[in-house]
């Protein structure tokens, strides 16, 4: 073979790092991977000692690796954090119940306590019930809006100070591109932040912001971490899927492209002429919102009144771009609370860039 690790020069190289193009052995890869995440955490002052940190855990690769690495770094570098797993049960039989089993195993494997919060308990509806009501066209809008809020509510139940999610560099590059393609300036300006919602009670952080998906999957594979990898049965994933494929094609040609897109995104300065949404509080539930009611309340109200299309606004003539909600599915920005003359950037704060 004759391919030795560029770092230790002794062991057999196991992978090529997309970030640096170095060929590295497993042990040097683990250390570089973990310590780069540590550097990101330290440089961005993501945590303070004594904080309670909820890891948004879907059972998928990113959040599984995040829970593992955060637990490890917390011990290795003495962050002094109390780490919790927080999972949302959307009520999708044959999908979420299986992935929740993975998270329950992670709870034991990593010794991190788990809280599961269900849509049924928070909203009175499971996703299966919502889909049987509204069909398969806009279900991802409901799911995305509800999940974002459910994570916040679950984190509050845990008494958490921070919510961390497994969004990786590839996800971030994809979101930047999508916001650019849609002319969604408000989201474009904040989607690259490593910490969002610092002004509120529960900031959200992305410690994997600069971590390549390839490395996350390689790490999980070499470490034999237990994760779940089935696509949601309701997910159409069309628009984001397209951007994702484009990013992957770019990466195949030049792996640095992903970091460069993030760098470009971070460097954008938004013109002062662009009217940004004003943030307020939902009159109904108290959740942050730029509208009278937050998106979740509008959608829920429609469901409960038997008018599930209420919050979706299907007006095709609308000039406004559709938005990327937390999971990147397409959902219309505009809801029926929008007043005339207040069109630009009317983005509900409740469905940002998660």
């Amino acid at each position, binding site marked *: *073979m004759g*391919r030795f690790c560029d770092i230790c020069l002794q062991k*057999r*190289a*196991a*992978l*090529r790092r997309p970030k640096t193009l170095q*060929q590295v052995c497993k042990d040097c890869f683990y250390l570089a991977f973990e310590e780069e995440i540590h550097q990101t955490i330290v440089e961005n002052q993501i945590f303070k000692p004594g904080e309670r940190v909820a890891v948004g855990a*879907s*059972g*998928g*690769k*990113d*959040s599984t690796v995040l829970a593992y690495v955060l637990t490890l770094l917390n011990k290795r570098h003495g962050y002094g954090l109390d780490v919790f797993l927080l999972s949302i049960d959307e009520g999708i039989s044959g999908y979420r119940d299986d*992935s929740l089993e993975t998270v329950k195993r992670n709870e034991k494997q990593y010794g991190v306590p788990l809280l599961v919060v269900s849509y049924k308990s928070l909203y009175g509806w499971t996703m299966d019930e919502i889909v049987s009501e509204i069909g398969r066209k806009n279900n991802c809008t409901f799911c995305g809006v509800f999940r974002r809020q459910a994570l916040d509510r679950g984190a509050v139940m845990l008494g958490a100070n921070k919510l961390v999610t*497994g*969004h*990786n560099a*590839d*996800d971030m590059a994809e979101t930047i591109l999508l916001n650019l393609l849609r002319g969604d300036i408000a989201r474009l300006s904040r989607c690259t932040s490593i910490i969002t919602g610092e002004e509120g009670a529960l900031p959200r952080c992305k410690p994997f912001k600069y971590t390549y*998906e*390839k490395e*996350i*999957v*390689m790490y999980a*594979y*070499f470490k034999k971490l237990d994760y*779940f*990898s*089935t*696509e*949601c049965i309701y997910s159409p994933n069309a628009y984001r899927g397209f951007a*994702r*494929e484009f990013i*992957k*094609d770019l*990466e*195949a040609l030049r792996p640095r492209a992903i970091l460069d897109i993030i760098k470009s995104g971070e460097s954008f300065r938004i013109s002062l002429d662009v009217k940004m949404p004003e943030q307020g509080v939902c009159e109904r539930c108290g959740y942050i919102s730029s509208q009278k009611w937050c998106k979740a309340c509008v959608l829920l109200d429609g469901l409960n009144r038997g008018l599930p299309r209420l919050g979706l606004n299907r007006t095709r003539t609308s000039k406004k771009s559709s938005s990327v909600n937390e999971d990147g599915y397409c959902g219309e920005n505009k809801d029926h609370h929008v007043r005339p003359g207040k069109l630009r950037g009317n983005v509900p704060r409740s469905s940002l860039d998660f």
Partner: protein
Amino acid sequence: MGTDSVESNDTVHLNLEFGGGLEILFGSIKCHSVDIPLNSGSEKLKMEHLLVWVRDNLLQERPEFFMKEKSVRPGVLVLINDCDWELCERLNATLENNDTVVFISTLHGG
């Protein structure tokens, strides 16, 4: 790659694994033990040939989720004997008896 002696002159025995959601395209079976016939006239099995064989003989649905043009779909990781195929000439890598080739999708879930 492997050091085992060749058992047959016209087939190569391989262990194939599919993960990260890719197994769904293969009847949800992750591990496959297969004998790949060599192309007539060639003495070596290359990754390029293996991909085509897998697509035509093992894959059950949606070939576009596995391959793009002559290679794997971008976002599918390939390891040959636990080594990233980007370190071993990718499509040009030569496979030997009892080698293990792992395909992992990075595109599913998060």
